[in-house]
């Protein structure tokens, strides 16, 4: 079965609002997660990562939260801008060969 998946396929927000994108994972042994942003016609771009020994990690305007109890991951984007419009994927790094398993993706649309 699929190890990583997203709750919402699309999310539409107003410019300046905060965005929250959610992700569930099923492998309780997973210990490293990454959020990627993919703009149209481009490859996945690393945003932020988190290891399982952390609950929260902050970057510039982005925060990732990890709830290991319910195997849930979220990406928060503060003051969303039109340039944030993209598909966002969570991914789980698995195994000694560091294979990434991606979720289905959430399309974020930021309305001006």
């Amino acid at each position, binding site marked *: 079965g699929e190890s990583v998946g997203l709750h919402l396929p699309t999310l539409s927000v107003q410019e300046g609002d905060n965005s929250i994108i959610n992700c569930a994972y099923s492998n309780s042994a997973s210990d*490293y997660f990454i959020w*990627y942003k993919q703009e149209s016609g481009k490859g996945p771009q690393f945003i932020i990562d988190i290891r399982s020994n952390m609950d929260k990690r902050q970057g510039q305007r982005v925060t990732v939260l990890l709830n290991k109890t319910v195997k849930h991951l979220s990406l928060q984007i503060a003051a969303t801008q039109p340039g944030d419009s993209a598909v966002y994927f969570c*991914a789980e790094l698995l195994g000694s060969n*560091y*294979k*990434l398993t*991606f979720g*289905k993706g959430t399309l974020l649309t930021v309305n001006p």
Partner: protein
Amino acid sequence: EPEVTQTPSHQVTQMGQEVILRCVPISNHLYFYWYRQILGQKVEFLVSFYNNEISEKSEIFDDQFSVERPDGSNFTLKIRSTKLEDSAMYFCASGETGGYGYTFGSGTRLTVV
């Protein structure tokens, strides 16, 4: 900022033909990967490559696929006899070390007709 470079950006090929997708990973990286993304779907792992050999491959990566690192800079994916269902974006990625997120290229859009 260092980039993973892929060529061509778009390739159209006839069913049954062989294609080679090319990648130049970031120069000091040791781990190399190919992923594919069928239009509108999630990114799927194909193969990982380390120390000049395949370290893991998915069920998708059957006998028609092969990878090579022919010199110190290039990393190629060959599809021997393309099928219509091979149409997808193919992404190369490289990582400096294991256990961390790695850098993706912009992809090659393969269209099999």
